[in-house]
């Protein structure tokens, strides 16, 4: 019996080697040869002309597809978007997966397409995994707006960027540097390793840290809490144990910063380690008041949902097509100009502290 298993194993290995050999001779499809081939054709969005004066259609059907349902932040965004839809007599709803994995949004995109929605608003868990189905949706005339976390830019019409990524990344470093006096070890506690928005911000943070005025700051680690409360909590614990000289943590995700604050507020590091990042006032209020966190930043998520909703309506009504330079009229938020690659920026980040936090309830 033993000889049999050995024989079958060696057969398998031989088969593998053989195929390797075959391909080595024949030359195959590699990354280089494939990228030189024509890139995927863009969706058949006809080069329709935008008509800025077209009225917003009534009864538009919009669907919000967040990274995952029951994420408090996404819920705020989507709720505001759904309320905004009522302003222009549209219908909107929120559906989504219960886990933030790359593949879980895909089947929702398909069902939303089948249900005949005019637009899908998506916060992509993985920029590429959702691309194929989004393209199919666009081929059927569904408008795609990404918000919060972008999908690959060939797969959507417009991306509502909550704030200029560069500004967010750089301002976080500035905020932290001010609070720790520009010296010491710092770490970043992010969401998932593939979260599009967090990774962009972290790139800018790293770039900012490279500037001479931040020479005293040393980034020791980027940890990933996967936007999971417990994991973020444990990662914070791990960071503080692994780097006893750590002076500051930046957590550019609402789940991360509140979990980190919860750990620090109950540990000996309270008052020793400065925590900042992006959080919501309701989640952070307690930690700002007890002194664990002095300052943190965010944009207004309600405005984000509102803007996304109006962008979806304007796209579906033909007011805009997503081309650079077009102007979006977004109700109470006024006008926004579409930038490069179909990006619309919500506005600069807003800093919350003890003095102003009670003015916000979300």
């Amino acid at each position, binding site marked *: 019996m033993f000889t049999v298993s050995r024989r079958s194993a060696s057969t398998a290995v031989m088969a593998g080697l053989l195929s*390797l050999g075959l391909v080595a001779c024949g030359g195959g*499809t*590699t990354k280089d040869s494939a990228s030189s081939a024509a890139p995927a054709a863009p969706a058949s969005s006809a080069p329709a002309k935008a008509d800025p004066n077209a009225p917003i259609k009534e009864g538009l059907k919009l669907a919000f597809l967040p990274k995952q349902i029951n994420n408090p932040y996404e819920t705020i965004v989507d709720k505001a978007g759904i309320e905004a839809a009522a302003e222009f007599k549209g219908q909107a709803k929120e559906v989504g997966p219960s886990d933030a994995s790359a593949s879980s949004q895909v089947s929702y995109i*398909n*069902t939303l397409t089948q249900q005949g929605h005019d637009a899908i608003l998506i916060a992509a868990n993985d920029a590429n995994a959702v691309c194929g189905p989004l393209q199919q949706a666009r081929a059927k005339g569904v408008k795609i707006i990404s918000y919060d976390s972008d999908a690959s830019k060939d797969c959507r019409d417009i991306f509502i960027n909550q704030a200029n990524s560069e500004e967010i990344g750089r301002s976080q470093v500035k905020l932290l540097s001010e609070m720790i006096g520009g010296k010491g070890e710092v770490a970043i506690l992010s969401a998932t390793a593939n979260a599009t928005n967090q990774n962009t911000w972290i790139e800018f943070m790293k770039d900012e840290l490279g500037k001479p005025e931040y020479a005293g700051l040393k980034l020791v680690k980027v940890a990933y809490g996967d936007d999971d409360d417990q994991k973020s909590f444990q990662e914070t614990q791990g960071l503080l144990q692994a780097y006893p000289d750590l002076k500051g943590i930046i957590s550019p995700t609402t789940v991360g910063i509140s979990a980190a604050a919860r750990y620090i507020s109950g540990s000996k590091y309270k008052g020793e380690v400065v925590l900042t990042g992006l959080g919501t006032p309701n989640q952070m209020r307690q930690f700002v008041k007890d002194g664990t966190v002095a300052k943190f930043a965010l944009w207004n998520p309600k405005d984000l949902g509102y803007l996304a909703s109006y962008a979806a309506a304007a796209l579906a009504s033909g007011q805009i097509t997503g081309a650079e330079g077009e102007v979006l009229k977004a109700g109470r938020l006024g006008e926004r100009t579409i930038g490069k690659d179909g990006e619309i920026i919500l506005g600069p980040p807003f800093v919350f502290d003890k003095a102003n936090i009670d003015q916000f309830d979300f």
Partner: protein
Amino acid sequence: MAPDVKSAGGAADTAAPLLAGLPDRGAPGRLLRWDLLVGLLLVLVFIGGSVGSPGFASVDNLSFALGDLGEIALIALAMTMLVVAAEVDLSVASVLGLSSALVGTLWDAGWAIETIIPLVVVVGAVCGLVNGLLVTRLGLPSLAVTIGTLALYRGLAYVVLGDRAIAEFPQQYASLAVEDVPGTPIPYPVALFVLLAIITGVVLHATGFGRSLFAIGAQEEAALFAGIRVKRIKLILFVLSSTVAAFAGVVFTLRYGSARADNGMGLELAVIAAVLLGGVDFDGGKGTLGGVIAGVLLIGLLRNLLMLNDVSTEIQSIVTGLLLIISVITPRLVAVIGQRRRRPSPVPSPTPPAS
């Protein structure tokens, strides 16, 4: 889908005497076979969906829903054979993840996809060999071994690819994973599944090898004394299961166009759920491939239907969970009732054929 279901169902009859979970195969027992009930339920869901939900029965939607089941269905074929032989492989989703991570890393390193695919499948076979050797040579329970390798292979996947995500795979191969066979609404992975399902159905229900699986599952020692090479067969099954899982990893990666170490996390539960729902007894020795295929389709189409009707994710999980519990309870209830009815019936022991 029709041909393979038919063939598997037809072949099931030849194996019927071996499925003797029900004490006596009278007419009511035959009608109450769980796999037939699942098939019936599937038809009901389909009819209900077509009537009640516009868009459900459209070619696009069904094609997508089937494509979405591709990996689960592929792995379920191999899993059915394992469970029939009273073993289980919980590491399949991790093998899928490892395979996806390998595809990503090697592709990123500039390897040819034609080299990567066979290599990854071979790695899958090796993973299965490890599982199989641990179970058969050391005599460890497969549940424990594969829980261990579930963590091990997933860990290796992270070692291979880390936290990165690799995208932009060659278009012609990506198309193979999502597009339909020309002229039909059947995606390529589903077509492959149909082909493999027919082969598996024939092997399981119409060959000596298949019958020996049922014999092993029903009573391993008896099977051994009957001259069945139990260890060797089990080893083959484990290698097969991981090989299929590795291949499913390639399909998964190309279909989503994104190679990540966490791909397919938790997929093993979906596979096992489908196998159990299809009426395969977790204790081994009973079950039909037709039932499993119906189980896979039922879970997939029901989920699709619930989604189309905006049923929340939590409720979807509850529905699937309840269905699963019912699937485990019902055959036992039927057996108990059957036993009460014919009180003095001695429990017939399945007669394993010598092969």
